[in-house]
């Protein structure tokens, strides 16, 4: 019984550390997703570019209710990467400029 009690006592600080670790990992996940839900990302991906006319780029990531909507530079890069249409046919830099 005493051994079991010691084990429980020893387990308490270990669990606290585990919780800290989990909190940090959770914070990392939140940071990488920009606080957006799956549905919100679908909205985001659907509006990741803009029209030449000027009525464009409805970057409308709706963050969690009650928080200020926020789009970061990293959000834009992620959306751009996901909407990549493949390697374009375009003029090479070497056709225009010399290094």
């Amino acid at each position, binding site marked *: 019984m005493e051994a079991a009690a010691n084990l429980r006592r020893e387990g308490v600080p270990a669990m606290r550390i585990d919780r800290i670790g989990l909190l940090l990992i959770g914070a990392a996940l939140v940071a990488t997703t920009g606080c957006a839900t799956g549905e919100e990302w679908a909205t985001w991906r659907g509006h990741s570019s*803009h029209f030449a006319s000027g009525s464009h780029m409805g970057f409308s990531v709706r963050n969690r209710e009650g928080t200020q909507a926020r789009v970061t530079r990293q959000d834009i890069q992620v959306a751009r990467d996901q909407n990549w249409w493949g390697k374009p046919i375009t003029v090479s830099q070497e056709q225009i400029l010399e290094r």
Partner: protein
Amino acid sequence: MSGKGTLAAALAACLLLAASAWAAPSEDRILALDQYTTDKGRRLATAHGRALRALNAEIYHCMPWVEVQKSSIGFFRPKHIASDSRYLSVRIYVEQDPSPAFAALRVEERASAMFSRYVGALLRRMNEDAALAGDPALDGYTVILEWLKQMPRAQGERPVHETIAVFVDKALALEYLGRRRSITDVAAHAKVRGFDGEAGLGDLRLAAWDDNFVSTYKVANYQVEAGVTCR
């Protein structure tokens, strides 16, 4: 510090590192020093490295709807100039949805619209460092703009980009920046080469106008990183 404490500290440090990495543009947009083929280009890049990084950062943070191409910021020699003239150059891809109205324009009209929207704005950003503009080794500026002309219409097809390369000699650029020339004058006197995909279209004559899009357009809900100021 216990092993677990060290683990927690390491995780926290990783978070901080990740956050700082996301906040900064990639330096691979700037031509590496060892890629220059002449001493003149390398000297300019060495002397004005901070200005190149500032230009990269300002476009990254303040014009997030465009993408700077890799190794495109630097002091390049325009191919049509025989001597080793060095132009401060940048190449951007303007991301925009395909628009039937825009696609229906003639190529010169699309090019004029893009010139009007971006060339003046980029020339201003390329000249924020007075020491750079005052360096007698700098001969001019190149702004290369490309945009999507045609999306893939079938599986296996590739998107096609349209591109203009705008070459502005230093005297003309400084007159524009000093408000002694209009952007219309710059378009009339600059050399502009057009490209449809990989095919050259030759020199284009453009009619440009003032367009304040870059200074007024805001991506909805976009927040610049802390410590960054966009003008």
